[in-house]
C-alpha cells in the first residue's frame, strides 16, 4: 500500500473516533428530547458541570470556597487530599441525580404543557445558571482531569501499520490516540447498557412509552415527573462520561460547554430521537469532516471542519428532514 492510501485510512479511523466523541455529547440531547420533547440547550454545560464536580471530588476541593473565604475571611480551599477515582465518579453521579431532581422540581414541574420553545428557553436559562454555579462552586481555573485512561499515540499500532507500506516508501506507521480508542469502547458499552435498560427493564419500557405518547403513558399510570427525573439523571451520567473524555483531552475548563456545538450537526443528521442515529450521525460527521479537511482543506485555507459538519448535516436534511433515524414527520390537515 502507498503512504497516501495509508494516510487516508488513518484519517478515516481518526474521523470515526472523533465522531464517537461527538456522539457522546449528542446522546444526552437525544435522551432528553426523546422522553420529553425538550431540546436541552444545557447539555454541554451539564458535561462541564459534571467534569468540574468530578475534579473537585478527586482533588478534595471545598465547594464554594472562594465565596466562603470572601464572606468569612477564611483561607480554606481543600478539605483533604481528595478521593480515589471510583468514589469520586460515584459521588458525581449522585450529584447529577440530585441535579436532575432539582431541575424537575424547580423548572420542569412548572412548565408542564408549555410550548416546546418555552421549555427550550428554560434550558437556555438553566445553562447560564449552571455555568455560573460551576464557576462559584469550583472556580474558573483550568483543572487537570486524570481518571487513569491512557492517552497519546499507540506505539503498537504504529509498529503494526508500518509493515503495511509497499517497499521503497518511507512510512512511520499510523497514528491512533489511545484516549479515543478507550472513548470508543466506553461509548459502545454505554449504548449497550442504555439499549438493554430501555428494552428489558420496566423503567425502560416506561421511558419508551412516554417517548411514544405522553398522554397514553399517563393514562396507564406512568408518572411523567418520575420519568423526567430518570431521563435527566441518565443524561447527567452521559454528560459525565462526555465530560471525562473531553476533559481528559484538554483539561476541564469553561470552554468544555462549547462541545455542544459539535453535537448539533450530529443531531441534525442522525435525528433528535434516535440513539443509533446519534452514533451513526457522529461517525458520518467525524469521517466526513476529517476527509474534507484532508482532501479539500489545503485548497481553501484549512479550518473547514466546523462549517463543513453543518453543511453535511444540511445536505442530509434536504432529503430526510427528520434526520437519518428520526421519527417520520406526519402532519395531518
Amino acid at each position, binding site marked *: 500500500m502507498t503512504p497516501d492510501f495509508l494516510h487516508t485510512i488513518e484519517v478515516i479511523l481518526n474521523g470515526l473516533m472523533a465522531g464517537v466523541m461527538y456522539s457522546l455529547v449528542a446522546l444526552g440531547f437525544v435522551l432528553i428530547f426523546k422522553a420529553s420533547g425538550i431540546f436541552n440547550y444545557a447539555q454541554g454545560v451539564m458535561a462541564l458541570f459534571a467534569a468540574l464536580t468530578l475534579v473537585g471530588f478527586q482533588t478534595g476541593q471545598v465547594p464554594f470556597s472562594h465565596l466562603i473565604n470572601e464572606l468569612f475571611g477564611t483561607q480554606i480551599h481543600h478539605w483533604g487530599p481528595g478521593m480515589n477515582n471510583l468514589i469520586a465518579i460515584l459521588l458525581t453521579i449522585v450529584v447529577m441525580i440530585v441535579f436532575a431532581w432539582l431541575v424537575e422540581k424547580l423548572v420542569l414541574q412548572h412548565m408542564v404543557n408549555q410550548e416546546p420553545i418555552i421549555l427550550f428557553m428554560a434550558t437556555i436559562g438553566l445553562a447560564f445558571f449552571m455555568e455560573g454555579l460551576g464557576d462559584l462552586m469550583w472556580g474558573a*481555573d483550568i483543572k487537570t482531569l486524570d481518571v487513569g485512561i491512557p492517552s*497519546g499515540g499507540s506505539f503498537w499500532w504504529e509498529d503494526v501499520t508500518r509493515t503495511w507500506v509497499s517497499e521503497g516508501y518511507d512510512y512511520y506507521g499510523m497514528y491512533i490516540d489511545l484516549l479515543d480508542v478507550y472513548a470508543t469502547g466506553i461509548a459502545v458499552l454505554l449504548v449497550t447498557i442504555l439499549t438493554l435498560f430501555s428494552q428489558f427493564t420496566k423503567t425502560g419500557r416506561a421511558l419508551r412509552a412516554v417517548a411514544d405518547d405522553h398522554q397514553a403513558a399517563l393514562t396507564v399510570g406512568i408518572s411523567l415527573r418520575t420519568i423526567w427525573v430518570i431521563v435527566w439523571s441518565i443524561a447527567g451520567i452521559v454528560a459525565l462520561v462526555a465530560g471525562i473524555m473531553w476533559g481528559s483531552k484538554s*483539561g476541564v475548563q*469553561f470552554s*468544555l460547554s462549547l462541545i455542544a456545538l459539535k453535537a448539533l450537526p450530529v443531531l441534525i443528521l442522525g435525528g433528535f430521537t434516535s440513539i443509533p442515529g446519534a452514533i451513526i450521525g457522529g461517525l458520518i460527521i467525524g469521517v466526513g469532516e476529517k476527509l474534507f479537511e484532508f482532501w479539500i482543506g489545503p485548497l481553501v485555507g484549512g479550518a473547514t471542519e466546523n462549517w463543513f459538519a453543518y453543511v453535511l448535516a444540511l445536505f442530509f436534511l434536504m432529503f430526510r428532514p427528520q434526520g437519518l433515524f428520526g421519527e417520520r414527520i406526519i402532519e395531518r390537515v
Partner: protein
Amino acid sequence: MKFMKLLASMVLSMSVAGVAYSDLVIPSLEYRTGPYAPNGIHFADGFTDYFTLLNERDGGIGGVPVRVVSCETAYNTEKGVECYESTKGQGSLVYQPMSTGITYQLIPKATADGIPIHSMGYGRTSAANGKVFSHVFNYPGTYWDAASIIIKHILDVEGGDISGKNIALVYHNSAYGKEPIRTLEKLAEKHGYNLTLIAVDHPGQEQKSQWLQIRRERPDYVLMWGWGVMNQTAIQEAANIRFNMENFIGVWWSSSENDVIPVGQGADGYKAIALHGVGDDFPIYDDIRKYVLDAGKAAGDGTNLGKVLYNRGIMASMLATEAIRTAQKISGTADITPDQMRDGMEALKVDAARLAEIGLPNFAPPVEVTCSNHGGPGLGAIQQWDADTQTWSLITDFIAADREVVDALIAEDSAAFASENNITPRNC
C-alpha cells in the same frame, strides 16, 4: 421635609460624584467569565493588584488615587464595545481592551473621543506607527516583532541557516491568529524556509486533522498563535504525536501555566516568547503581599502571584502608571485628562534604573516610546517550561526583532490604513 431630604441627598451625591472625578480612572476591560476566563482572571488580578498597591502604599500616583473601573467583556467584542461606551464618560484615561477584536473596534471610536488605547502585545500591529495612529499604542512589542523574534531564535539554534527548513504555523483562525502570517512569509523569502499555514477554528478543542497533517509533513518547527483551550489542545496533541517540544514555540499569548499544566509531563520543553520576566522573585511582590494580599485587598485569592499572565497584568499597569507619571510631569498637574495621558504615553521612558526603583529589576527590557514609534522596543525573550518543577525559565536574553522586515511592513500597512481613512500622517 421630604423635599429638603431629597435636595440634601442630591447635593451630597453630586458632591460625591465630584470627588470621584478627581480620581485617576483606569477602566479594566476584563473577562472573568466565559471560555477564556482562566487566562483573563490572572491578567485582571495582576492589573488591579498593582494599582491597589499604589493606592495603599503611596496614596495613588502623584498623590491622586487610582480608581480601577472593572467591566466584564467575557472576551466578547460587542460586550467590550459596550464597556467602552459605558465607562468612557467617567474620565477614563486609557483603555486596555485585552482583545484584538475589541481593539479593532475601538481604534476609530477612541481616536474620535480623544482617549488613548494601549493594546500591549496585541491588537493592530501597524498601530506602532504613531504618525498614523495618534491614539493607539502597542508597546513594548507587536505580533510582527514576536514572529520575527521566534525566527531569530530558530536561526540561533540552527547556527544561522534555516534555508530549506520546514516551519508550520498553527494559528487561531481569527484576525489575531492571522496577524503573523505576512511577517512569516516575508521572513521565509529572506531566510529560505518553507512555511506551512495550519488554521484552527474557534475554540480549538478538536485539532486532530491539524496534528495528523503535522505528523505527515514532519515540519522542523511548529509555531503557535493560539488562545484559550486551543493552546492546551495543541500542546496535548503535539505531545501525543511525540513532536519534539523544544521545536514547538508559542507566541506570548500561548505561554501561560494554564496552557501547559493540563498536559502534564508531555509539555516538558515547550517554548514560548516572553514580554517580561517569569516568577515572583522581584521585590515588588513583597509589597504586594504586605499591602494588598495580607490586607485582604487582593483582586484574587493570591494563588496567581508570579504566574505569567499575572505578571503581564503587572507589566500593563506598571506601564500605565509610568505614563501617568510622565503625563503629570509634562502637564504640571496631578489630575490629568485623557489627552494629557496620551502625551504621557508618547513620551514614555522606562529604563533599567527606573525598573529597579519600582521593584521590578530586570523584569523587562527598557521601554521608550516616541511620536513615530508607538510599538516600543520590540524585544522578546524565549521561555521554556519545566514540567518537573512546574516553572518557566527564560533561556535567552531579550532579542530584537528584524527591524528591516518588520518596519517595512508596518510602514506599508499603516500607509494603506491612512489612505483608506483619509488620515494625514503627523510630522514627527
